[in-house]
């Protein structure tokens, strides 16, 4: 058995193509402590149960109430141990052993142990929990029995002593440390879950930097500082109030008046230019990348998209620069499935350049030189219909008449999940945003054979058994020292996918977080890749002390 311990983390981070990481998240020594902030949202907070919550709004709120074995260094994608103090990975990459931090307490005062870690993951896998995160744990031994409700827990998770927990996997899984950092593996206390039942999501109790103070349904959620937080010095703020039910436009007006600190839903598109043209307001906007790609899927089951030349032609026909302008440059043009900030992004790959003539020639080669008529499905909220119209015009220029079907989100998703449901879909509003910063996360459900099933998310129904095998190979490289090799394998996989062109990648959205003048902390906290809109544990205000 090879021992990596804490020092490996730095190696792991390096090997994953990221900068070096410390063994534990260190609070910013310049940060001021105290004060409170107000963040607004339009929609209700659905739930704060880490086993259930899976939208971008509650995702980072849950991260502040709960902790997992692993986490990321603030503002980066570097993995660091969190509730774990250290870990070891066996040589075959199939056994992960975590040593827990001693003295970590839940908000109810009880000390967290290895039993809680096991309970929390057993709970997510248990079908009665109806967790959307169940499938993330599929590589753990005994998952199938537990997921089907035939076993009481996942047999591959063993409590060795109160501060040691071991996971046995059925296959080497390079993404396992990321899985230990996602919300679904965050640790919950059994007694509180049993006390509240399905209402645990409204009465969350975790080990996080904040604890729930008040929840007035439909009005506000208040987080209070957890004075007993194991990572001393965090969080910096005494309280965060999330005000619910505020339209983004109203939130912006209130921000301008100094009544709130961060509009959680961002800058409303209609006001974006106005804000960016005003130097005073622009200074309060932080821009950053996002693990997001917007794409057009082409269903390979529906002629003429069964012909690779037609799919390539579509790739060449779309003028991505112009589409980006349509949304006020809130994105950058894309040429491959992975976003630029994702490890494994093929920097040297050029993709299909915009070339309507060549596209036409390809259509002629494919035998549809006279063009054809098809349907382009799109979600019906702004800016997506506008973007679809831009794509429609580009396609019309090479003779493809695409009729726009603008539907509610759920209906587009339903059409995409049918074998011959939607010839083309613009992914906007439903596009893939990574669950964790690893290249594999853009493959399985949306481009792999596993997702090309009824009700799946692989809307192009592209299935390449060869690439599936390569993906499996890449993910079995668990040794952090070989991570660079693994990332390159993933790069190759995505470049090969682009040869078959089941997608036309269009752009990667940028993030724009606006904040009040009193907010402090590095810009990267406001465009944290894992915490949207901001990293609540690490931001602070300047007008205290």
């Amino acid at each position: 058995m090879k021992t990596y311990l804490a020092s490996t983390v730095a190696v792991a981070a390096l090997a994953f193509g990221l900068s070096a990481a410390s063994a534990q998240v260190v609070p910013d020594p310049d940060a001021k402590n105290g004060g409170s902030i107000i963040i607004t949202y339009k929609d209700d907070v659905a739930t704060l149960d880490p086993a259930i919550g899976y939208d971008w709004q509650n995702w980072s709120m849950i991260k502040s109430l709960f902790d997992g074995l692993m986490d990321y260094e603030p503002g980066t994608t570097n993995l660091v141990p969190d509730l774990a103090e250290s870990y070891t990975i066996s040589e075959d990459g199939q056994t992960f052993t975590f040593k827990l931090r001693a003295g970590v307490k839940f908000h109810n005062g009880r000390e967290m142990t290895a039993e809680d870690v096991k309970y929390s993951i057993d709970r997510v896998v248990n079908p009665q929990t109806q967790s959307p995160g169940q499938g993330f744990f599929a590589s753990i031994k005994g998952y199938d029995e537990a997921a089907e409700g035939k076993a009481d827990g996942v047999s591959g998770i063993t409590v060795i002593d109160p501060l040691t927990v071991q996971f046995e996997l059925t296959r080497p899984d390079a993404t396992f440390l990321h899985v230990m950092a996602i919300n679904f593996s965050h640790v919950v206390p059994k007694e509180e879950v049993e006390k509240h039942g399905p209402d645990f999501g409204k009465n969350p109790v975790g080990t996080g930097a904040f604890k729930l103070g008040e929840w007035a349904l439909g009005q506000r959620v208040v987080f209070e500082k957890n004075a007993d937080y194991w990572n001393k010095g965090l969080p910096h703020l005494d309280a965060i109030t999330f005000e619910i039910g505020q339209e983004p436009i109203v939130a912006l007006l209130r921000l301008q008046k100094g009544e709130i600190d961060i509009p959680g839903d961002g800058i409303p598109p209609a006001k974006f230019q106005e804000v960016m043209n005003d130097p005073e307001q622009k200074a309060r906007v932080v821009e950053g990348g996002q693990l997001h790609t917007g794409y057009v899927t082409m269903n390979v089951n529906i002629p003429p998209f069964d012909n690779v030349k037609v799919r390539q032609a579509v790739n060449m026909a779309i003028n991505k620069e112009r589409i980006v302008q349509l949304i006020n440059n809130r994105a950058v043009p894309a040429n491959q499935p992975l976003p630029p900030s994702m490890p494994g992004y093929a920097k040297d790959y050029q993709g299909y350049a915009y070339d309507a003539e060549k596209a036409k020639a390809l259509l002629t080669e494919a035998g549809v030189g006279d063009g054809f008529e098809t349907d382009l499905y799109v979600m019906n909220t702004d800016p997506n219909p506008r973007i679809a119209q831009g794509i429609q015009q580009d396609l019309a220029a090479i003779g493809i008449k695409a009729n726009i079907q603008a539907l509610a989100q759920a209906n587009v998703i339903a059409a995409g999940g049918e074998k011959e449901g939607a010839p083309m879909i613009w992914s906007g509003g439903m596009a893939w945003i990574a669950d964790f910063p690893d290249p594999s996360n853009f493959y399985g459900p949306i481009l792999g054979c596993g997702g090309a099933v009824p009700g799946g998310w692989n809307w192009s129904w592209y299935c390449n058994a060869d690439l599936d095998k390569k993906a499996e190979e890449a993910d079995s490289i668990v040794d952090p020292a070989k991570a660079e090799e693994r990332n390159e394998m993933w790069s190759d996989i995505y470049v090969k996918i682009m040869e078959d062109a089941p997608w036309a990648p269009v752009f990667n959205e940028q993030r724009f977080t606006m904040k009040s003048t009193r907010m402090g902390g590095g810009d990267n906290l406001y465009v944290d890749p894992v915490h949207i809109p901001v990293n609540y544990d690490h931001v602070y205000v300047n007008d205290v002390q």
Partner: protein
Amino acid sequence: MISYLGRRIIQSILILLGISLITFALLYLLPADPVRQIAGRSATPATVESIRRQLGLDQPFLVQYGRYLWSLLQGDLGRSYIQRSEVSQLIVARLPATLLLMLGAIVFELLIGLTMGIVAAVRRGTRTDQSLMVVSFIGVSAPQFVVGLLLLYVFAVKLGWFPIGGYGTFSHLVLPALTVAVMSSGWYARMMRSSMIDVLRQDYIRTARAKGLARATVLLRHALPNAILPIIAMIGIDIGILMGGIVVVESVFGWPGIGQLVWQAIQRVDIPIIMGVTLVSALAIVLGNLLADIIAPLIDPRIKLR
């Protein structure tokens, strides 16, 4: 009266049953799959099927509807698919806000609408009448979203007289209530005007005037009580319309009522919430109408309920 009430209550129950059946059927026929919303994009087909089975959504329509009705009879509206909380709890938490906004809106629309209607009727055919009717027409036609944002911009942002959205104090209530009232007061003004004109033509009004009573006395004591009758029936209907129709206003002002709740639920295909709010709104409409019917004979003895 009693037998009339009994009949109306039975009718109301049938109406509610019908509404529940139609809504349930429409939601059942929706191409969107609620289970996929719950399961999220990372779920395997096995997870999706397991959730579908547990929620009973794999059952035929009639079985699903039967189960829903059976729970409903026991006062159970089910649990939200997305929030996992009890729907009744979510509605009860938001009902006071909607009722408050409704009350505020009704007060405003009566104040504005009735005043405009009476003035227009008294000055029938004059410029005042015409311009009031144009204003009421604009009020009726203006989209609430626009009116709301306009009021918000002028009175909250520019003048700073009221808070920009939110809930809690009387000053929070003014702008949203006024926004709702702008539309309905137009209806009230038109209704009041024509009803008032009818009444003013009656002989007893001429008699009263001939007796030498002051104009205001004739108008408020003699004409108004008769002219206001159709308005009362309208308030009853209005309660229902407001109950289901203030979705937009609640969104603009961040008012934590049931309109906002159902709007979010529709976007997430959260069927138990959509059903629950629809039924509560339907109940309000039915009760509002019933109330109007009961009150009418108390005000006007000529009306007899049979």
